[in-house]
């Protein structure tokens, strides 16, 4: 493995220099969340009922927003191409991208969850469930969106295409995450849902980096 740390360092440095890349999606998440009460009315019970769906759909959209640009710069300036030619460093590059993508978009969502709980009048039991599902779910979300971004990096039209690719793959995560939050709201155990989410995450962690590598390879060919 070629020095993973230097790759991570490079990505972090880039994030520090291009703050809009990760601040905008986080801001977008908060905006979407605050738009929902304006749309459906500020009734606390209604909001609490809808919270799981709202949180997870907003999370999906903001992560997709961040993922779209993930490989664009490095594709345009030839870094991807030259790393593919060099073969060996490609895995480190992909892992660094995945890790920093979660760090810059998934982690802020986890950190913002107390704010979400306030906005959507969620009680403490549900909040814990939301925190846990976000912790387990956002890495999976990052993995999926990075894969979509890698598949479409040389495509003529990005945006909507990325959403279309990711959407069906994202559905199991949406179902189990929101069901865990609903179970928590009703005072039921939700270990089962968390276990399934963990299983999906581990499965994705094993396979998706390989899919990303082959996606990058075919995009430079």
């Amino acid at each position, binding site marked *: 493995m*070629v*020095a993973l740390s*230097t*790759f991570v360092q*490079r990505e972090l*440095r*880039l994030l520090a*220099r*291009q703050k809009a890349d990760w601040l905008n999606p986080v801001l977008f998440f908060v905006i979407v969340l605050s738009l929902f009460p304006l749309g459906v009315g500020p009734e606390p019970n209604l909001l609490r009922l809808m919270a799981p769906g709202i949180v997870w759909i907003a999370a999906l959209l903001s992560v997709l927003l961040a993922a779209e640009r993930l490989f664009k*710069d*490095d594709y*345009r*300036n*030839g*870094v991807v*191409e*030259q*790393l*593919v*030619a*060099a*073969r*060996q*460093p490609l895995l480190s*590059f992909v892992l660094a991208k995945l890790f920093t993508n979660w760090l810059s978009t998934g982690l802020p969502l986890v950190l913002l969850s107390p704010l979400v709980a306030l906005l959507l009048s969620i009680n403490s039991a549900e909040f814990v469930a939301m925190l846990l599902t976000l912790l387990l779910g956002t890495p999976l979300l990052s993995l999926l969106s990075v894969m979509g971004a890698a598949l479409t990096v040389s495509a003529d039209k990005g945006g909507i295409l990325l959403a279309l690719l990711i959407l069906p793959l994202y559905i199991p995560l949406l179902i189990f995450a929101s069901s865990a939050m609903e179970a928590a709201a009703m005072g039921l155990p939700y270990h089962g849902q968390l276990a399934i989410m963990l299983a999906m995450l581990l499965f994705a962690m094993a396979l998706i980096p390989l899919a990303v590598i082959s996606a990058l390879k075919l995009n*430079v*060919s």
Partner: protein
Amino acid sequence: MRPIFTVVDSQILVITPQPYPVPTDELLLHGAGLCCIRQDRVLFEQLDFRVHAGELVQIAGKNGAGKSSLLRILAALVAPDDGSLYYRQQPLTAVASDYAANLCYIGHQSGIHEQLTALENLSFWRSASGIAKADDFALLAELGLAGLEDIPCRMLSAGQQRRVSLARLWFTRRQLWILDEPFTALDQTAIAMLQQHFAEHLQQGGAIVLTTHQNLSMAFTRQTTLELAYRW
């Protein structure tokens, strides 16, 4: 087959290229019957291509003749539509990792991230090619970039960016260099310096494949020119 240029992770501070084995005429890369089809055009077909150790191969031709496409095939980025490649007499697909470990490919795009400084870009490529940290200030100064080391590369001119990109050639220990338009945007002194460096690399048994529009101003001991015709 064991690669001759193994990457050694040592703590050297000054770049001392490892002495290459005795320069030989060993056939490094051989393409037989290569064919490339892009979009709806046959760029070339039945192309035979040989690169020996110590040889510089210049690929010339008009825009759109398929120079870059040929380089991308040679760099194993794209599979040829027909024909096959051999690295040291072995099919490339069988020894792909060995080949990649002995190859330095710099494409049409520089591989320089504009938000990073010259130093950061260089140290990225250093670790990507598995080489220990060294004094990049000296190297950049040698390339005429003194005082520009820690400025984001987007502030540099096109020629300066190209120099940062090519600085990799001064520390890489790969035997085969594949360079797409290395002279673009460079001024006369930089071109001369680069050619001087090419000569040193060839002397040590390295091999270079490059595309360029202009003729090389320096004469190399072993130089081949391949002219690609534009085809309809």
